[in-house]
């Protein structure tokens, strides 16, 4: 009962904020609505008793990704000038890509057997379980991802450093 109300509440929050994010004329507002949307997702995780995931969601997605986006927007304030157009000119590719994505999601939604999925809901906190799984069963993907991220990090640093060297 409570879960149902919370679920629909969070779902509405996600949908509305996602919509607002797209139609907001100001890109900064879009980023804020994105944060709200992600917050709603974290709420859904909480409803599913997956506190750890919810915490990570807030910490990483809102605390890092959205903040990064806001940071970039702040640093390039010129995109907010009145005369700069907020709308994308590449209408056709946008329609194709979003259409494909929508198709993918909708088909996934329709094909999933929701009845059995709900039974799988974790009964309680799974922090320890997540940790154990990451370092036992999924240690290889985990390490690969970390190496990938490290490479990205070094790449980013080298790009920035190279820029500076060129200036000098």
């Amino acid at each position: 009962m409570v879960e149902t109300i919370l679920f629909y509440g969070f779902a509405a929050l996600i949908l509305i904020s996602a919509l607002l994010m797209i139609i907001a004329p100001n890109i900064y507002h879009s980023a804020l609505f994105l944060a709200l949307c992600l917050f709603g997702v974290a709420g859904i995780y909480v409803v599913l008793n997956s506190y750890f995931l919810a915490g990570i969601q807030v910490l990483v997605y809102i605390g890092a990704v959205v903040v990064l986006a806001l940071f970039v927007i702040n640093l390039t304030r010129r995109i907010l000038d009145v005369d700069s157009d907020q709308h994308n000119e590449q209408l056709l590719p946008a329609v194709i890509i979003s259409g494909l994505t929508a198709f993918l999601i909708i088909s996934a939604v329709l094909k999933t057997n929701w009845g059995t999925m709900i039974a799988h809901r974790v009964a309680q906190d799974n922090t320890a379980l997540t940790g154990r799984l990451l370092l036992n069963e999924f240690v290889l993907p985990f390490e690969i991802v970390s190496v990938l991220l490290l490479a990205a990090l070094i790449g980013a640093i080298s790009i920035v450093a190279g820029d500076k060297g060129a200036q000098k």
Partner: protein
Amino acid sequence: MDFKKLLWDLFYDTGKPLSQFYAWAHNLWMQTGLPGFILDVFFQLVIAVVIAVFIALNAIWIIYYERKFAALLQIRKGPNRVGPFGLFQTVADTVKMLLKEDINPDKSDILTFWAAPFIIFAASFGVFLVIPFGNGLIAGDVNIGMLYVLAISGLAVIGILSAGFGSNSKYSLIGGLRSAAQVISYEIPMVLTVLAVVMLAGSLKMSDIVAAQTGNPLKWYFIPQIVGLVLFLIAGNAEINRGPFDLPEAESELVSGFITEYSGMKFAMFFLAEYTNLFLTSALAATLFLGGWQGPFLPPVVWFMLKTYFIVTILMWARWTFPRIRVDHLMAFSWKILLPIALLNLLITAFLIKVI
């Protein structure tokens, strides 16, 4: 029902009578046949109101305390006009602040300008949920306690950035950006030090962390984690943008940083959030390293407050002594000094846990 026993329980084992009361109320409620969650929502509302009142009163007290403490270090007397010992000075200031005109700068971005103080305040308000004030006196003892704290307190960055963005002022913008960079880079050493404690306690849950330290002061984590405590205080102090890390609002450089354009009520909210964050950081340090509410003789709440205010005093002492660090040194300090030490600390802790 033994009244004396109840009183004793209320002070020393607060969780028990409270849960008894909740069970009793729940039973009573269930007899009416209404859905149970309405009662839960009601209770949560009550808790929220209690926390809000506590935040307000605590902020008023802590501002007064800071002013008095600063005066002590600066060989002057501090507020002593309004009320006995100037105790009502902050109250008077608050009233003045609330009565002031609320100015919205021209060409400010109204949505973000208005949202910013509320986001910042909400972030510090939310963290109170998992602070264990006493034995069982914790609003929501969630399993991921520490993670929750880190996640929610990180939300304040959005508020700070929004304040910098929405004000449409260059000083605010620089302040906001500085602050965001600062909070993000100091979160890493902070998380690492917290991780060491979490490893020692074997749980993210606040009550477990407190329980793992036991009532014996020799087993509190500040002994094995003395480096961690220092790192936590430094990183925590930087997280809450207080001197010597008060670059976002560096008065002599950026006027007031991201709060330059704020006035009246919204300014008061920033102020409230700042001092609440000070209290929170100290409370976390007390919980993680000084055994939380545990201690002999005195009631847990008193112990908790004593420890918290001890940390608060140390942070204030540092603030009123040191000059402000420069923005690039700040980053270098975090990445070149704090991070290696924190990693080393974590490594040694992990090693010792496995060996011993």
